[in-house]
């Protein structure tokens, strides 16, 4: 038991570290801003570390973690019933885009529109969009991660992307 546990714990943490950028991106797609996303990732990592002995080596660690993040977000939505229509933007990132006046304007409009539009979608739609379009998962992989049928992934993904596009380009 000693040998197995030590090796497992060490490899687990290292793999978790390499996944952090993708986990942050997934969390950001479910949240209003980067700070909120990092709070969510931190809570998910704490939960994952406490339960690491339940994770089966050989199964996908990234899917397991995405699921933890997603479920934590749903718990939060249930317990905190406040609505915040004002969406703080990532100001620093917008400021960085100063190549020329037109491009800055475009980038600002794009960023604000996409994140604002995502706020109008349901959490599950955001999660599906994030896993497929951002993380590049196949429909099957996304379905397994969220534990829903592939058909549901496809129909909701199509509808959500159309809606997102309409909101952003309106």
């Amino acid at each position, binding site marked *: 038991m000693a040998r197995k546990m030590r090796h497992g714990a060490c490899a687990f943490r290292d793999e978790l570290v390499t996944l952090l950028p*993708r986990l942050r991106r997934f969390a950001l797609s479910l949240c209003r801003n980067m700070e909120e996303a990092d709070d969510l990732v931190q809570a998910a990592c704490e939960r994952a570390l406490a339960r690491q002995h339940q994770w089966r080596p050989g199964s996908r660690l990234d899917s397991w973690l995405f699921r933890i993040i997603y479920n934590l977000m749903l*718990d939060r939505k249930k317990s905190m019933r406040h609505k915040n229509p004002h969406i703080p933007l990532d100001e620093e990132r917008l400021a960085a885009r100063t190549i020329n006046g037109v491009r800055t304007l475009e980038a600002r409009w794009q960023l604000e529109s996409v994140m604002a539009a995502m706020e109008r979608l349901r959490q599950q739609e955001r999660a599906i969009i994030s896993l497929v379009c951002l993380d590049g998962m196949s*429909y099957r992989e996304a379905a397994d991660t969220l534990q829903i049928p592939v058909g549901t992934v496809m129909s909701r993904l199509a509808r959500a992307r159309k809606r997102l596009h309409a909101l952003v380009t309106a």
Partner: protein
Amino acid sequence: MQPISDETIMAYVDGELDQEEAEQIARALETDPELRDRARLFRESTAMLREAYSRPLEEEVPERLLRTVRGRMTRSWTDRLGEFLASLLPRKQPAFAAALGCVLILGLGLILYFSSFPPAGMDRASRLAGSNAFSRALETLPSGRRLLLQEFHSELIVLRTFQDRELRFCRQFEMIHDPGPGETISGGIACRNQGDGWSLVFFHEPARIDTGNSGSAGFELAGSGDPVDAEAEAMRTGPPLTPEQEAQLIATGWEMTP
């Protein structure tokens, strides 16, 4: 000709169709501008999303997340060992260094264990899992009694014994580290496998690092009291064992009562 659904166009754009279907759609796209518009919509939606959410992949991971995963040191002693060893080799690659550190623990870990010298950076859960004293305590310590475990500078107390869904015997415990002012308390659950001893299945340690902000406060587990209690409740089948049942199990080496 049958109308092509949004889902099919989308699947084509996402590369999810098999070759035959993809060729069919490609041919249809050549002659149908409306279909091309619909395909472009899906392509654009992906592009705008990647643009909007590129920041987490472009910047460094914040220190507080590294600390959460790695514990007190963001570069653990295994990283430093791995880097040192990797520097002895002709090619240096960070991922390799980390893996090397992990692999070598297996060898060095045993030596360190036998000489009772736990490395400061090694995480507590791993050390517990590898500890004979801890296993022996789980085998023999009745619930409610405290036992000092020298190697951890901690007192162990088992709170209760119960059975999980697979009818393994599990014990919920707490450890009081450095008893006295400034003591910290961890909690966990270990389960007994037939013929294989005790496995640590859940371990919760309070954060020892001042993150300087609310940290994960916004995302407490729903209905949170003690997370270990919650986990034990989720695992438990039937009521916890009475002191008499526990005493009998300890006396018979944890054989199932007939």
